[in-house]
């Protein structure tokens, strides 16, 4: 940028007016003076010339004769008189004779260095002497020559005097003109400066300022017009500011919005050059707004098809040319300048001006990288088992269904393997779930190498696995199954310095066109696996549809559907069985075990409980059943008006329920809602379930006991480590396993075991209950041993009607109250 040179001429109208006028005046005065000087010089020259012309004849007349006479004295007298005469104005006179020699001279002149003759008057101005030469003649005959100097000083003085006077007059005139022009300029431009001041104030933003010019001349009218214009400008500026404020607010909102939103927004002009990108877009493309502004959008965004990874057009120019938006484009992968990849969904819309002309586009880039990753993760989680990362049951079934369809359509043949680990429960029960989980992971790793990538290996639940061998016949499937079986058989699982060996039972089912659906295939595979287990475990069984051994398994599956219906349609009933204190003088409260029964409504009979429980446990229905039991038990107790408040009601809980996260809170809420004294409630847990879920069970018991509930450890003595775990389980009762009690009379070992269990209970302050008390002899021995309670047909048979009656009768169990034995085992 070049520096602006200061203008030596002020930008003021009055100054310019005065300066211009003075300039013209000075120019004219200068010309006048110059002309005067010229005229003066001319006049002076004429005067001098005239004087010379007058002097020369005089000199000629006066000197020529004297020179002719050689009258030197007379000549000198003439010379002196002339030089002394102011009117003559002569500075010197030199007379030459006819030979050219100086004959006489006078005045201040050096005859040896005579000045040159001035050819014109102007030459005389150098020394103020007009040097003239003239012949002296008599009757036309030269008699000599005279040189004389005519002093022009007087002329010059006169001229200079006139010139000085002229200069003084001119100066006075200029000064007067300056004053007058200044005054005129001031009065003429005063209003203009007011206008100027007003325009400056208006320019600086004081649009409401009015020009205070009241004159009626052109300036006044101009001021009026200017005021009107300023008012109009003020109105428009105000409107513009309001619009600007609104626009700014909107812009701020838009910018804040664009900055705040997570989607990348890029706007382009009509040629596809970037005009704006928001911070989210900057993060996506890796360029800042300053870097990409004006760049073509193709140069900053590279997109690829998410599936094929082929480059794809970003479609901006297509949208601009067509004017049609792409509201949601195909999913694409964006690779930015740092080679980071983003999964995006882009939308592009044209931008129109008020004339509907397309002026650019806006592209919205929705980063779906996390969503897609999450989706993939969720899909993976939804389709895979979290423990083994194998395909889960749902995905396995979905794929199997698809393959079944393919078989039907294309005649392909696939084979399904159903694997169930043998002795897994032992590991789980003895070393805990962590060991079981680890065993399952390692078994998965053992099996994976033997399964093709195109095949499907899935964990179907618990210790069950499924395999789909594609385009495979049964023989090959058997070979694969054998490899799997052998691998697992050879596998030694080490956990906390203990070695475990397990086996696997494998059911094989060929998927053919005859298999109608996925359920039938899975059912067949399950049944084949079940058959393999029943045949002695750790072997392979191929399912044949004509094989009758699979009927029972089919019954379990049928039963599970009946259970679900019973839960939905109230197909269960509660029976109660008294647990009676054995000692006659016992002050122990009465106890009642509530037993679940499912009604076969078609045949109007009760379904055996072991059938219901087997199916319910296999199909994970026990938590729902337990919830039903607790809810209905609480309801019965609450509605029973005869309850004294000393009775204790025992409710069985399955191991599956104890493992559910929400079960504890649900039960506690139900108890609180029922307002039943928790001390009247006793929950029975089998020893096997307690040991298998020791941590969860301990937590459950502790929380419930804090509430006031009681706990009973059922089937105590059936496990190998019962006594060891008893210290860790804060139970109130132990129910001695019926297997010992049933043989108490004839087997002394069982008696000793019962005595030991009872003694341990006494030592630990735990009340003992003997179940399966089927006769009086057993009851007598139990009395003798000192067991606290007795339960069994010898005491009371479970009955749906007895619950109310028993409560009504109250008191210790007496013989008269013992109902007829019912050949139905209790639930749990």
């Amino acid at each position, binding site marked *: 940028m070049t520096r602006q040179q200061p203008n030596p001429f002020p930008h003021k109208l009055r100054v310019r007016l005065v300066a211009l006028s003075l300039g013209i005046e000075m120019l004219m005065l200068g010309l006048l003076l110059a002309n005067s000087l010229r005229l003066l010089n001319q006049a002076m020259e004429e005067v001098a*010339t005239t004087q*010379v*012309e007058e002097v*020369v004849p005089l000199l000629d007349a006066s000197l*020529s*004769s*004297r020179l*002719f*006479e*050689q*009258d030197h004295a*007379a000549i000198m007298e003439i010379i002196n008189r002339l030089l002394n005469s102011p009117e003559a104005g002569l500075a010197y006179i030199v007379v030459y004779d*006819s*030979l050219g020699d100086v004959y006489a001279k006078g005045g201040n002149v050096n005859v040896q260095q005579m000045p040159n*003759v*001035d*050819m*014109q008057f102007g030459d005389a101005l150098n020394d103020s002497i007009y040097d*003239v*030469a*003239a*012949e002296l*003649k*008599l*009757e036309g*005959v*030269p*008699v000599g020559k005279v040189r004389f100097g005519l002093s022009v000083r007087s002329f010059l003085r006169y001229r200079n005097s006139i010139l000085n006077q002229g200069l003084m007059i001119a100066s006075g005139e200029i000064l007067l003109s300056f004053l007058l022009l200044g005054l005129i300029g001031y009065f003429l431009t005063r209003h203009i400066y007011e206008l100027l001041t007003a325009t400056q104030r208006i320019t600086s933003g004081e649009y409401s300022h009015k020009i205070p010019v009241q004159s009626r001349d052109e300036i006044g009218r101009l001021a009026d017009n200017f005021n009107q214009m300023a008012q109009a400008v003020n109105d428009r500026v105000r409107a513009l500011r309001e619009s600007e404020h609104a626009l700014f607010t909107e812009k701020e909102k838009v910018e804040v919005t664009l900055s705040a939103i997570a989607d990348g927004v890029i706007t382009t002009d009509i040629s596809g050059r970037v005009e704006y990108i928001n911070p989210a877009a900057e993060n996506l493309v890796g360029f800042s707004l300053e870097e990409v502004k004006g760049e073509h959008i193709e140069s900053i965004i590279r997109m690829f098809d998410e599936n094929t990874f082929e480059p794809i057009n970003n479609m901006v120019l297509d949208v601009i040319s067509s004017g049609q938006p792409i509201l949601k484009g195909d999913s694409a992968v964006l690779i930015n300048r740092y080679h980071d990849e983003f999964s995006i969904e882009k939308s592009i819309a044209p931008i129109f001006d008020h004339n509907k002309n397309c002026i650019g586009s806006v592209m919205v880039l929705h980063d779906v990288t996390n969503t897609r990753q999450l989706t993939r993760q969720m899909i993976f989680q939804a389709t895979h088992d979290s423990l083994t990362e194998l395909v889960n049951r749902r995905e396995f079934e979905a794929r199997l269904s698809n393959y079944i369809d393919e078989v039907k359509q294309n005649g392909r043949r696939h084979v399904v393997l159903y694997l169930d680990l043998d002795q897994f429960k032992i590991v789980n029960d003895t070393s805990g779930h962590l060991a079981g989980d680890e065993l399952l992971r390692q078994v998965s790793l053992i099996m994976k190498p033997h399964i093709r990538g195109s095949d499907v290996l899935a964990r179907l639940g618990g210790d069950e696995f499924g395999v789909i061998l594609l385009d495979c016949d049964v023989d090959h499937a058997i070979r694969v199954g054998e490899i799997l079986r052998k691998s697992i058989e050879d596998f030694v699982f080490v956990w906390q310095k203990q070695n475990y060996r397990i086996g696997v039972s494998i059911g094989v089912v060929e998927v053919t066109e005859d298999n109608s659906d996925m359920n039938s295939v899975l059912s067949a595979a399950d049944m084949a696996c079940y058959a393999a287990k029943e045949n002695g475990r750790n072997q392979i069984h191929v399912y044949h549809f004509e094989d009758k051994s699979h009927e029972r398994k089919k019954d379990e599956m049928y039963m599970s559907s009946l259970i679900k219906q019973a839960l939905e349609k109230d197909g269960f009933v509660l029976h109660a069985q008294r647990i009676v204190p054995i000692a006659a003088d016992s002050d122990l409260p009465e106890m009642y075990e509530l037993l679940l029964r499912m009604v076969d409504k078609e045949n109007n009979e009760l379904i055996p409980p072991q059938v219901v429980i087997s199916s319910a446990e296999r199909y994970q229905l026990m938590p729902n059943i337990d919830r039903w039991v607790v809810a209905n038990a609480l309801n019965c107790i609450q509605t029973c008006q005869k309850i004294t408040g000393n009775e204790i009601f025992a409710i069985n809980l399955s191991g599956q329920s104890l493992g559910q996260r929400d079960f504890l809170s649900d039960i506690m809420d139900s108890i609180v809602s029922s307002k039943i004294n928790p001390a009247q409630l006793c929950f029975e847990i089998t020893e096997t379930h307690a040991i298998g879920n020791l941590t969860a069970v301990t937590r459950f018991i502790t929380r419930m006991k804090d509430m006031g509930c009681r706990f009973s450890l059922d089937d105590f003595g059936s496990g190998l480590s019962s006594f060891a775990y008893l210290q860790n389980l804060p139970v109130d009762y132990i129910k001695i396993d019926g297997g010992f009690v049933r043989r108490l009379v004839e087997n002394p070992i069982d008696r000793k075991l019962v005595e030991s269990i009872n003694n341990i209970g006494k030592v630990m302050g735990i009340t003992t209950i003997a179940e399966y008390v089927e006769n009086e002899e057993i009851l007598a021995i139990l009395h003798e041993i000192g067991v606290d309670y007795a339960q069994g047909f010898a005491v009371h048979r479970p009955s749906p009607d007895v619950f109310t009656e028993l409560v009504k009768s109250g008191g210790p169990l007496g013989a008269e109250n013992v109902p007829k034995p019912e050949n139905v085992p209790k639930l749990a």
Partner: protein
Amino acid sequence: MADMSIFRMRWLLFIFILPTTALANQPPYTFGIFPYVTTTQLIRFHKPLVEYFEASLQRPVILITAPDFTTFVNRTREGEYDFIMTAPHLGLLAEKQGYKRVVMSLHTVQGIYVVRKDSKIMSLDDLQGKVVTMAAREAIIFQTAEHQMKQHGLIDGKNITIDVARTHNNAMFAPLRNEADVAVTGILLWRKLGQANKDQMRELARTPPSPGFLVMANPRIPDSVVDKLRYTLLDFKNTPQGENYFRVTGLKGFKPITDPTMEGLEPYIKIYNDK
């Protein structure tokens, strides 16, 4: 004026210098003429003679004069002039100083007494007590007139008063200006006087005639030059310029200077001898 001077100088060169370019290589001769008339008349009368001189001698000639007779006599004596044309007695005087004879004019010098026309003076005898104006006591006319008046018993300072004018011309106008009763002037001037003035005056008497003007050469002029000059001057009258010259000047011609002529002038140089 300067232009005019240049123009004049160029004209003079054309008239005088160019024809005499051949003469320019030698220094000019000075030709002094005794101031018997005004300088203007001298120049005008004798310009043709000077030109003839130059042509004859093949050298430039400068014509000069003197303010009065005395000065002219002194300058002649001092040898300022190479050639002189002078009154006859002054010629004799110059010869006595070494000047060489060249020629003499054919006319004779004769004084004339004039008075105002209404003057009561009718003869020389009426001049007693009158004022007589004459020019230049050294002039031959003065001396012849003084001598004549003495013969009539008129003595300056005694019974007449002689007033000396600067020139014969001035003396001639003295009666008209009432400065004198009688004026004595040269007869040549009287003849040249304008008729209007002449009508106001009348001739009273004349002096005896005396020889005309003598042309003499300075002693430093070689005789050959003098002889050559004399030869050519004697032939001057035969030229148109000479004819006109003698008609205008009234000198009538030149003739050689003879001894009797010179001897007859002896009385008139007494005045110089007395000084």
